[in-house]
């Protein structure tokens, strides 16, 4: 096993929310999160919406400092002993593709502008035009019709591919991809996932892949971690976690993956039963985790104090 490229060790993050009236409320967005990613490999973060997946990603790109715990890149604490040169190298090595392409593209700039700067930073001006075109083709956009367009002239899916191209343009070593394919249709989603796979295999780029699409987690990531309410419920080889989930929340999540053979309207009782079960599992899973059991090599399942008693 090679040394991890990225590791999170007991990372916690608490937000303090000040309403106009009333007391400050604490949101524990991350609670004691631990995982690591090796070069050229992918870890998928799946789980409840609001469970802290994006918060993890944003801590990794140093959007903010964790309240507790350590994040290491190549073994070094990313918040300790920062130098300007080290900073810009880190910021180039770690790129983020956001959940929402509307938020990350500048409406007043053409696609050419969005890609030219990172390409120049990374590889100078040689063959700039050819590299521009290649980068767009890599994400299956037609350079002829796309280069001079503005973000609003592209469809949602086309826009998301541009943000992906931009992350590739700087030659990242780790890409934090926060739902990069959620707006792409299935026929294109696969080609983007294949692109990610190729980048992993051929250029050894690592991915922290955040998604609600569990089938794609299985397709792209060697490891999967399931999050709920700021904690990791289960973590291990994707195949084991997804095909044979062991934690009650992971089981619930995987049971809810859309199944075209099961209509919603034909099952009013079913709907009620599902909601009841979901509520019960969520209430249970919200309790603090006491520790993890390693049920198979590298496959960890959380337990709480109550489980032990």
């Amino acid at each position, binding site marked *: 096993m090679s040394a991890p490229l990225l590791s999170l060790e007991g990372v916690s993050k608490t937000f303090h929310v000040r309403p*106009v009236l009333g007391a400050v409320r604490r949101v524990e967005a991350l609670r004691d999160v631990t995982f690591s990613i090796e070069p050229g490999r992918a870890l998928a973060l*799946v789980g409840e*919406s609001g469970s802290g997946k*994006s918060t993890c990603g944003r801590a990794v790109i140093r959007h903010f400092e964790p309240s507790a715990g350590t994040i290491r890149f190549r073994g070094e604490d990313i918040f300790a002993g920062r130098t300007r040169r080290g900073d810009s190298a880190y910021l180039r090595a770690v790129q983020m593709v956001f959940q929402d392409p509307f938020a990350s593209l500048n409406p007043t700039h053409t696609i050419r502008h969005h890609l030219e700067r990172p390409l120049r930073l990374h590889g100078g001006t040689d063959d700039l035009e050819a590299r521009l075109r290649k980068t767009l083709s890599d994400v299956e956009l037609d350079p002829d019709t796309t280069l001079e367009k503005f973000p609003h002239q592209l469809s*949602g899916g086309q826009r998301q591919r541009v943000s992906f191209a931009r992350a590739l343009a700087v030659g990242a070593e780790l890409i934090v991809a926060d739902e990069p394919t959620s707006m792409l249709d299935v*026929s294109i*989603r696969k080609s983007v996932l294949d692109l990610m796979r190729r980048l992993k295999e051929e250029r050894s780029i690592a991915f922290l892949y955040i998604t609600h699409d569990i089938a794609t987690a299985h397709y792209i990531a060697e490891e999967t971690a399931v999050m709920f309410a700021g904690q990791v419920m289960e973590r291990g080889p994707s195949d084991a976690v997804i095909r044979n989930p062991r934690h009650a929340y992971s089981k619930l999540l995987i049971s809810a993956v859309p199944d075209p053979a099961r209509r*919603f309207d034909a099952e009013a009782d079913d709907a009620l039963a599902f909601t009841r079960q979901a509520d019960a599992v969520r209430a249970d899973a919200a309790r603090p985790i006491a520790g993890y059991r390693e049920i198979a090599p590298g496959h960890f399942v959380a337990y709480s104090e109550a489980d032990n008693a």
Partner: protein
Amino acid sequence: MSAAKSLLSVQNLCVDYLTPAGSFRAVRNVSLDIGHNEIMGLAGESGCGKSTIAFSLMRLHRPPAFISDGKILFDGEDILAFPRRKLEAWRWSGASMVFQSAMNSLNPVLTVFEQFRDMLARHEKTGREAARAKAAEMMAMVGLPADRLDAFPHQLSGGMRQRVVLAMALTLRPRLVIMDEPTTALDVVVQREILQEIVALRGRLGFSVLFITHDLALMAQFADRIAIMLEGRIVEEGAAENLVAFPRHDYTRKLWAAMPRIGGTAA
């Protein structure tokens, strides 16, 4: 089905984008009927024109988009001929829309409650207390605690913002709700709970839905009928069961074959 029987009847709709490079027809002769209380699914690859149709139906399309041909009848009335006042009153209460990437359609400087109150104030006389109660009720429907009403959008996760927008779209009891990828930011547990709730609400309150998504499996679970688009045209349309069991068009078959499945090799 005759036009009068449908809540929404789109006839030969054409929408063009006028770009410096010339005009581009994004929607080509689309005809589509949505019945009362019907959930109509619209699927098709990225860029095929789904959102363009959605915006046009609400008359929310902006230049360089132009409706160059066709009719849009809502309960028999031509919405393309609505004067501005009537149009504004009709939006939210006649038909409402959950935008693609809805999570960024919230105003960043207002709390969630202030946005509910704005919307309510524009349509009916609602006191602060009543607005608060209504907003809390709608939040509960999408599984959010009432205390989140005091949050600003950036303090909520993507999925939470998406649920807020969904709740707002249903607040004024519109007869048609257009949902452009309403659940892509949600986990599958919450997604299922919300869509089941919408099915139940439709039964209780009665409204129609135009549901746009890339997730064909989800569409098959939720929609009564499905239309498949390719390059601005509808290439196949039918009852959801039939489109799942017997897709006729090559493109529909291709979409199904490309669908992610756990355990399969294709993603």
